[in-house]
């Protein structure tokens, strides 16, 4: 029972971690909270569903979902965030909220208000060990998440563009003076953050076999919480924060009350912040 809840928590935790990485990177570099992250997640999932229904290819649909997520992320950066750089932090926040309302109602218009199931049936095989079960799909989600996280860490630490992003996050003026194209770094950050959220959305759409225009709301908020929990601006923090949140909420739902499932993530957040006001991994700010 306990092990089973830990496995379920790990799966949702991986997804929260992917969304949290997007939040944390954008916050780390721009100092703003991209509240529309959950809508990017939702658009990624919807685009994948539509492409899969049209083409039947799972690879093509995953690529389309991530591509749409990236395009929306880039557009957001251009339209809703770039003109607001350096303003009072509440102003980009409201702008992001406006963008999020815009995107979710756009999705409602395009895809209709009702839930759509994923047009591909999965019959995942179950593996059991120590009285707990894990299926193929869960293993794939955990595997893909770990792969994406490793890829991101390698990109940031080993490539020129990745190092440029870290430099801009540390001090954007100094980075500009040493010849780094700061705008390109911002765009790249939005691109990667959106790709991760899009991937998370697609995996969750397959896992729960449902997509709806509001599906991004709670994962978006929990991803944000996970980023804060881990310490904003910290990549390992976002991953740990996501996992802690996912596991806490599954344990809470199983052992205390399932109708308060969504509350446990936030209760855990408040508790951690009261004890460690700068997050689990101290943020780099």
């Amino acid at each position: 029972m306990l092990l089973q809840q830990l496995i379920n928590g790990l799966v949702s935790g991986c997804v929260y971690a992917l969304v949290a990485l997007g939040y944390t990177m954008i916050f780390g570099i721009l100092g703003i909270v991209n509240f529309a992250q959950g809508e990017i997640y939702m658009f990624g999932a919807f685009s994948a569903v539509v492409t899969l229904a049209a083409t039947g290819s799972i690879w093509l649909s995953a690529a389309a979902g991530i591509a749409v997520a990236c395009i929306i992320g880039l557009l957001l950066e251009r339209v809703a965030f770039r003109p607001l750089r350096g303003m009072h932090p509440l102003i980009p926040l409201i702008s992001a909220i406006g963008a999020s309302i815009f995107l979710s109602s756009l999705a409602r218009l395009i895809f209709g208000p009702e839930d759509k199931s994923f047009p591909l049936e999965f019959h995942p095989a179950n593996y059991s060990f120590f009285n707990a079960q894990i299926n193929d799909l869960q293993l794939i989600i955990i595997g893909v998440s770990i792969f994406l996280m490793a890829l991101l860490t390698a990109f940031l630490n080993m490539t020129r563009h990745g190092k440029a992003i870290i430099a801009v996050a540390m001090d954007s003026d100094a980075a500009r003076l040493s010849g780094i194209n700061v705008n390109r770094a911002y765009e790249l950050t939005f691109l990667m953050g959106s790709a991760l959220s899009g991937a998370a959305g697609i995996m969750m759409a397959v896992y729960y076999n449902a997509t709806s225009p509001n599906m991004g709301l709670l994962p978006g908020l929990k991803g944000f919480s996970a980023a804060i929990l881990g310490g904003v601006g910290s990549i390992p923090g976002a991953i740990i924060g996501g996992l802690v949140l996912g596991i806490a909420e599954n344990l809470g739902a199983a052992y205390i009350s399932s109708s308060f499932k969504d509350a446990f993530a936030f209760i855990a957040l408040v508790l951690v912040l009261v004890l460690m006001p700068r997050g689990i991994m101290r943020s780099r700010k």
Partner: protein
Amino acid sequence: MSVYVFHVLIMMGIYSLLALSLNIIVGFAGLVSLGHAAFFGIGAYLSGILMIKGLGFPAAFFLSGCATAVLGLCLALPALRVKDDYLAIVTLGFGIIIGLVFMNLDITGGADGLVGIPPVSLFGKPLYSKPGFLGLVLGVLVIMIASMYSLKQSKIGRAWAAIRDNDVSAMFMGINVYAYKTMAFITSSFWAGLAGSLYAHYTAYINPHTFNMHTSIMILSMVVLGGIGSITGSILGAILLILLPEVLRPLADYQDIFYGALLVAMMVFRPQGIMGRVKITEMFGRKK
């Protein structure tokens, strides 16, 4: 038609109260709260339940404000240990937790909401007419505006301004930063609770969906749109954001799209808010 106009005016009044009360946290003390609808809801539910249990309106009204202020204190004590974005997410989490509590308790009627809230009665007479209720809302609003202006000038208001501009130097000037920030939350939640009480008795029926995160965000948008810290601005922001859905109503399905796009456009083209640093008293006052 006129009933509809009065309804919109009453909603503008109630949301002006909410925007002004949030402006105490955001504009005066420079903090942030994404869970303001929770206070609105607590005031509404408490006042509704108290009056169903047989309490008179003035007592229920006042008690719901006070009880909401106590809950504001309960949130502020742990939440104010953190700052900025951390505070934003803690208040947002508080709002979601309170929303789930409304949804799952028996006394609040769960997801079905609280039905049969008695109307406001003053001096033993129930107040059914919309113009009458509008008068009551405007009366409360005038008292609140007056208290906000005097609060802004008072020692507390100046301490808040110092904390907002630079909390470290405020601390070195001998201001108890934590205590004054807590005070901002208490004052703000008191007024939000009163607004909730008015809302509950006006609609006679409340459900948890009214007090969710969207409402919190809408109230915050009113404050930012009007101009952070501006009293006139908060009222203008409330009027505008209540009016906007009514004006956009003919667009039907496209209503939310325009609403979202307008929020972005307003931030991009007028980030300082409608009022910005302009004061209405200066606009009409003496010109040099």
